[in-house]
């Protein structure tokens, strides 16, 4: 096996979200670069790892995926784009995630909501999105 489950998942999720025109390619793992124009999308590891339910490697990993925007309306639209890209992107579905050379991503499940409003330099910044669970199996 040439890569870890999390490495394969990060790549697959980034590719899937980058194809959503709403973000215009502004999709980042863990942290966006300084002064990134909003709205953008950022995803990060939340929970999970090896499942130990199969003889071969298998994993279940949760990611938090959110849109960061200047308005609540844009944030909600971004959350919708995230959901459109990732929810139920199962292996049998046309929008299946590409797990790469070492992993199959068997299914995705959309879980809880991410909702946050913060003040940055006196201005509102909105975070909207979801947690997702990804079931994976080694090839």
């Amino acid at each position: 096996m040439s890569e870890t489950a999390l490495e394969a998942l990060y790549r697959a999720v980034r590719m899937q979200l980058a194809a959503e025109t709403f973000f215009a390619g502004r999709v980042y793992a863990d942290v966006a670069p300084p002064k990134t124009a909003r709205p953008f999308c950022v995803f990060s590891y939340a929970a999970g790892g090896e499942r130990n339910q199969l003889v071969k490697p298998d994993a279940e990993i949760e990611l938090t995926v959110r849109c960061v925007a200047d308005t609540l309306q844009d944030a909600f639209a971004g959350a919708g784009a995230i959901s459109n890209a990732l929810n139920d992107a199962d292996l049998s579905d046309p929008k299946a995630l590409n797990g790469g050379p070492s992993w199959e991503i068997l299914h995705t499940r959309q879980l809880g909501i991410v909702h946050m409003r913060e003040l940055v330099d006196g201005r509102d910044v909105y975070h909207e999105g979801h947690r997702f669970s990804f079931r994976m199996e080694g090839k």
Partner: protein
Amino acid sequence: MPALADNKIYLSIDGIAVQAYFKNVTLTSSSATVETTRGAGTDHMQRAPGLKDTSISITIGYDTANIQTFIQKIAPGQQVMIEYGPEGAVTGKPRHVQTFVITDAAHTVEVSKADVVFELTGEAADAPIVDMYAGAVY
């Protein structure tokens, strides 16, 4: 010596190796008893071993690439030869070979996307050909 606590088994059904898809295996060897209580004043039950029996339950995952290699072997109502090695097919390790009648092959799919499996049960069609409980090994 260390205890066994891994999953490197050998399991085949009518010659088709399925250990790559297994989730659990339970092999139950049992014995009936025959009451032999006798003698005046006896105040405790006496028994002797009766007929032996064996049953097996196997949970196999639904492997989308290989389902057609084994699904016909797990259809209920047929007699199949099951071979099982709890430590794999390794020389010197326990081995059990016996024919079973498959009595059930339950299959469930859930909207929550839980693992899809087949839950098989079988009852022995005859005495073991190779008996793990008699010390048989590979």
